[in-house]
Every structure is written in C-alpha cells, then in structure tokens.
C-alpha cells in the first residue's frame, strides 16, 4: 500500500470524524478512498445476549446468531487488538467483535457460536464482578482461553458506574487498574493490554498517560447510543478503537448495512 501524505491523512481524519463516509470523489482521489477502504473496518460492541430484559444493551440470541451468520457467509474474518500489526490483518475483510461487562449470557449464547465460526472476540471484564451470580468466573474464562479465540480486556476492577471519571481520583484510577491486572494475572496468567472505558466515558490525557504507563496498548471507545458511525482505521489512530454499540433496535438489515459499509466506502 502506498504511503499516505500528511495532507491526505488530515482529509481522511476529517472525514472519519464526520462519521459515515459518502462517496465524494471531489474530495478524495480513488487511491485515497481505496486506501481507507482497505484499512477501515467495523468494531462491534455487545453486552447481553438474552431474550429479557430487552434494553439498549441487549441483543436477542436469534439476532446474534443471525448477525454472526451474516459475517461468516459474507466472508468476514475477525481479529484481536494484538493482531492489528500483523500483515495478515491488512489483507482480510475484517471485523472486530467485543463484549463488555462479562455477562454469563456470553457463555450461554455467544461463545459457543463464535467458536464454531472460529471467530475471535475481546471480552472486557469488570474485575469485581467476576464469578458473582450471572457474571462469568475466572474458572470459566480459564476453560476457554486455551482455545485461542478470546482476549481479555479491562473494564475496570471496581469503577463501573456512571460519571466515574468525575468521582474517581487519578490515583484511585491507577490503583484500580493495577488491581485488575494483578487479579487477571493471578487467575489467568496473562497480561492485560486492552482497556474499555465504563459507560463509554471520555478519557482525559491524564487517564491516557496512566493507561500507557501501565502497559495498555489499546483503548476501546463507545457511545451509550450509537450516534455516529465510526469505523476503525488503525493506520490513522492505532490506540483508540471506536465501536458500534449493538442492541435489539438494530434490524438485520441495519446490521448488514453497518458491516458492509465498512467495506464499501
């Protein structure tokens, strides 16, 4: 792929921040569009897969099964954040699948299906809830980690509440992340390098500095509701990964438009 100049990069950044790209040959050349096309892809965010309750964070099992079949039969391959640098990542038609929170519905409806498709997935875990009630336990994560399809990310140890960034000092923020990393290493013997901000709260530069200091390479973003379509382009911004929050308001047609548009920019 040819090197993109600074001027071209700014154009692309402007357009990606507007959200949905429209075909605009007056602004972009064919090469620029092609470059963006090859590099941008959708990153999907799920929470609960369940019939009830139906909320902004729920996708029904039927919908999830149908969506994954669309991805498979449309030729999509999945990748994990740790694979973004690989040469294979540049060649495939790709999507990144992520889950937040660690709900047990992942084990009941999502992971059994994902492993049949050999789809990889990131699960951003709330450390303090692991193993409690209907949250997945460390034992259960350990059972499936060996299959090589799952990456564990941090969704806080214990600051999963609204406006946490205003209520939590930077010191507590750092301590909490350290605690998560220690717990994850103790139970799973893995280093955590991915962070997802609870409730999609925006991070300040101080937060980002701490994350970098603690070895987090990728930061997942999300909106509470999907306002703009934002496709991820690692060539433009490696560290911050925007995501589409899926819920049961999305029809399968919406889903197809979402994932295909990431390819047909």
């Amino acid at each position, binding site marked *: 792929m040819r090197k993109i100049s600074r001027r071209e990069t700014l154009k692309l950044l402007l357009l990606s921040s507007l959200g949905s790209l429209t075909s605009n040959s007056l602004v972009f050349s064919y090469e620029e569009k092609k470059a963006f096309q090859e590099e941008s892809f959708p990153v999907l965010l799920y929470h609960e897969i*369940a*019939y*009830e309750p139906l909320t902004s964070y729920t996708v029904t*099992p*039927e919908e999830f*099964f*149908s969506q994954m*079949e*669309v991805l*498979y*039969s*449309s*030729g999509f391959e999945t990748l994990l954040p740790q694979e973004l640098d690989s040469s294979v990542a540049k060649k495939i*038609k790709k999507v990144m699948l992520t889950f937040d929170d660690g709900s*047990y*519905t992942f*084990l*009941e409806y999502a992971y*059994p*299906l994902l492993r*049949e*498709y050999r789809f990889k997935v990131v699960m951003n875990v709330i450390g303090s809830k692991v*193993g*409690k*009630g*209907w949250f*997945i*336990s460390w*034992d*259960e994560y350990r*059972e*499936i980690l060996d299959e090589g399809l799952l990456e564990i990310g941090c969704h806080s140890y214990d600051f999963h509440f609204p406006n946490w960034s205003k209520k939590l000092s930077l010191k507590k923020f750092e301590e909490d992340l350290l605690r998560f990393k220690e717990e994850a290493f103790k139970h799973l013997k893995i280093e955590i390098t991915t962070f997802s901000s609870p409730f999609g709260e925006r991070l300040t530069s101080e937060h980002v500095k701490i994350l970098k200091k603690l070895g987090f390479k990728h930061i997942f973003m999300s909106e509470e509701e999907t306002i703009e379509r934002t496709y991820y382009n690692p060539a433009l911004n490696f560290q911050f990964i925007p995501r589409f929050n899926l819920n049961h308001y999305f*029809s*399968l*047609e919406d889903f197809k438009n979402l994932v295909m548009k990431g390819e047909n920019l």
Partner: protein
Amino acid sequence: MTSVKGYNERHERKDKYFYGKYLYIEKGNPFEVWNTQILDYLLNYSYETYGHLPLVSVVNWIPLDPIEHPTESNIEDEESFFIGIKPNLKKCNENEDMEVFDTYKIKSSFNCFFSSYHVYPYYPDFMNYEFLTEKRPYLAYLKRLKEHHKGQALLIAEFGIPTSRASAHWQVHGWTHGGKNEVEQGRILVEMIKDIEKAKCAGYAIFSWADEWFKVNWLFMKYYLPRDRKPLWFNLQDPEENYGLLEVYPGYPKKIVSLSGELKEWEEAFIAYKNLSPLNKEGEIKSIRLANDEGFLYILVEVSTKINLKETQFFVGIDTGHKEYGEFSFPAGINLISPVGLKFLLHITGKKDSRLLVASSYNKMLSHEKFFSPKGEVFPQKSLAGKWNLILCKTNMRRVTKDFKKLFGPKFYNLSSLRFGSLKPENPDFDSLADFYVKDNLIEIRLPWELLNFSDPSSRKMFWKENDILWKESDGIRVVVISYKPNPFKPPTALKILDFRPNPLEKDKINTYVWEKWEVPSFHTRLKKSYFILQRYLKNEKN
C-alpha cells in the same frame, strides 16, 4: 434417586439391621435394608423351590454411589447462587449426589452377593469435573469405586457409547454421550474394557446389543409428538436409540440410499426436477430427486458435469411444509428470492465445512429451557432478511462445586456441521454418521427427520409451536437448489450464480414431495464395525 430419598425419609433415615438366612446388613439406611430383605427372600425362594442358590445383585448406578462428590451441588442451590442469593451450605441433598445406596454393606456368609453398577463415562457431571487432570478419568473413577468395594465382587453391569449424530453430554476425554461413529464406538469400548479390567472389576456387560427406536433422550424427547408413535421411526440424532453393536436401520431388505454415488439407487425416487436437454455447462443442475425411509429424508442433486467443490458450490433450500412461511432470502451474496418459504438451507462447500442452517425463527434449540426466558414460539416466520442460524444444542449446564468456589461453564454441540462420507462399509470413505457424499456428478444428502424439526414423520407432523399448538401436518416438501462459483478471495461468498432450479423461481414451478405415511415400520439389521473391533480385541485378549 428421588424415590430412594423419599423412601429413606419416610422411614426417618434410621440405621437398621437385618439378619437374613443368606444375607445380612448392619447399619444400613432403610432402602439398603429393604433391598437386602428382598434379595434374601429371593435366595430363600430359589433354594426351597429349585434347590439352587444363585448369585444375586441389585443394579446400582453412580448417582447413588457411596462416594462423596464435591463438584456435584444441588440444582436449586446453584440457581440461587447464580441469581445472588447466598445458598445454605449446610443443606446436603444434592441432586446427583443426594442419596447413597451402599451395596458394600450387604454381606453374605454364602458368598452369593455381588455389587453391580451402571457406569457411563459422561454422566453425571462429576465424572468430568472431579477428574479433569486425570489421563484416564473413567479408570480413576472405577478405582475409587472398587476401593470402596474392596474384597467384594464388583460388576460393571452397563456401559456403552452411542453412535448417534448428536452428543447429549460432553466428556473430558472425548468419550461423549453420542457424536461418535461406529468405528469410534468400537475403539472407545475397547478402552473402557481395559479400564474396567485395570480397576479389577469382576466383569462387565456392554450396553447394548441392538439399537432401539422406542428409547428417548432428554435433548429430543419433548419434540416427539405424539410420543407413543416414536417406535415407528428412527432418530439417528438421539443417543438413546443408538447404543447397539447391531444397527437397526430403516428400510428392508437394505438401505434405500447408501451414499455411494450410485444413480440406480435413485431410480424409484420422486423427481422434483429434471432437465430434459442439459447443455453440460459447469454447475448445471440436471435433476433433483427426493426419497425417504423411517429415519431420513434423502436428496439427490445431479449435475451435468463432474463436481469439484472448490469450483462449484451449492445451496439446497428445504421447505418442509406450508410454503408461505419461512425464510425467502439467501446468504453469501446470492441475490435471489426463494419462491417458497425455506426452513432449512444446506450449504455444500467442501468435505469439512459444509453445514445445515435453520431459519432463525424455527431454531428450536434456541428455545431450550433452563435459562432466562426461552422463546415462546417456534415456527417458521416469514422473512426476507436472510436470518439463518447454526443449530447448537446445549449438552451440559453451568455447574458449581458444593462449596460454591469453583464454576464450570456450559457445553454445546454443533448439529449444523455436515459430515462427508459413504454408508457402504467397504467404501474407504465409510462413516456411519455421514450426512452427504459427493462422487462424480452426484451429491447425495441424508438428513434425519428430527434434524428437520419433524415430530413424527410417520404421520407427517412437523414441530410447530404457535399459541396453543405444538405441531402441524406438513403438506409436503419442496426443494430449491442453487449452484454458484465461489469467490476465492472472500470465501464462502458467491462470485457468480451458475444455475438455479426451479428456473424461473416461481411457486408453481416446484414439485411437492408428499411421502406415504406408515403404521408399520420396515427395518433391517447389520453388525456395526464396533462389533468386529470388539471381537478382535477379545480374541486377542483370550490368546
């Protein structure tokens, strides 16, 4: 176990003693004492009537074994734990470890009593979770059992591995409750015999001699409607029907279709489509034929030229009844609309990755109870969205240890995965679980009725859960076939459609296959390859 528990509680769980003429027991629970009394009576009767003192036993099974199982907690306590209610750790009536029937306590000064158990490797869950790090988990359990029965003869009165298409329980060693073909059955049985011998058991009895059509497994039993017609048809999916060393297979005197690429087997089949003037183009569909027996729907796709699945792939859409219902769109970039509502879709792409999809609204396995709120209705709803699902069944629930400190995740089995192979034992591609076979220009497909959501094929009933009804009678089967060139850069998408039938895709161009109902099934038998594997092993052992 509930009956045993109920009996012991009715008798206040008081330790009792019994000294009979031939058997005695000390400090037995009420159920243990009752059994001793019955057996002693039996011995008395036999000797007084016939002058013969036989060996006696009572068949026990491992949920009643006298061993503590720390991984086997009470289901009600588990559910409380999962929803955040702190369980009562002092309660000790665990569902699969709730009672003990300790036959070691039954003594005989005449040496006419021995203990016997049914021991399968995959159930209950403690057979997995207490032996996760063992190289031979089955042997590890048998050793523990035999240790408890030291000095007493211990017979493994029942063990086996079914040759069903579906697996109903996961097992850590791969000795699952189904999902094994007959060669795998034979090999696993040999390994189990070795373990039984190593554990110094007195002997064993393999379950079973023959397949049994009347038996039902927990995964499928609620879909057999009406239940009393189940013996009239065979379900290859159901583990309980498939334990035999002797295959009891539909059709007489032999299989109507053997998945061996022999067009002559299809001469009597129903012709859904026939091209009278083929042009011999790549992927051109020459004929589509349907047949059935008491266990399966068979589909033949005959193509004009030799099939190379790397160059030509296929969708076979199946409408199992009521054509206005179902999914009308295809996946993988196929921009066609089916003229009839499809309930199932075969995607033939190769030996290893071919699969059967189900229309999302008709995916009955997603409505399986035991977790949150299951789907209320399961019937094929009209859709143009292309909502296709894989079919997964849940084999093991989430479990937690008795001390609630360790959890084990649920397990699932993929029913959508299609196996390539032939049903002819002498064919090098022989696989008793084969779903499809491709040879020259023929694709032959064999699908169990139950996999296609039929509740009773003998009376053409399809599972249909809507409002108060649970089934509907099918008005017949219709098939749509598409051949396409796959995109080598974006598998499994289609690059180009090669052919489709009916052409044009119109309702009145499709022929409907309405099969004969039956009241008396036909069947024939065949010794499975597992029989010969066992025969060779036992012969070598003897020598």
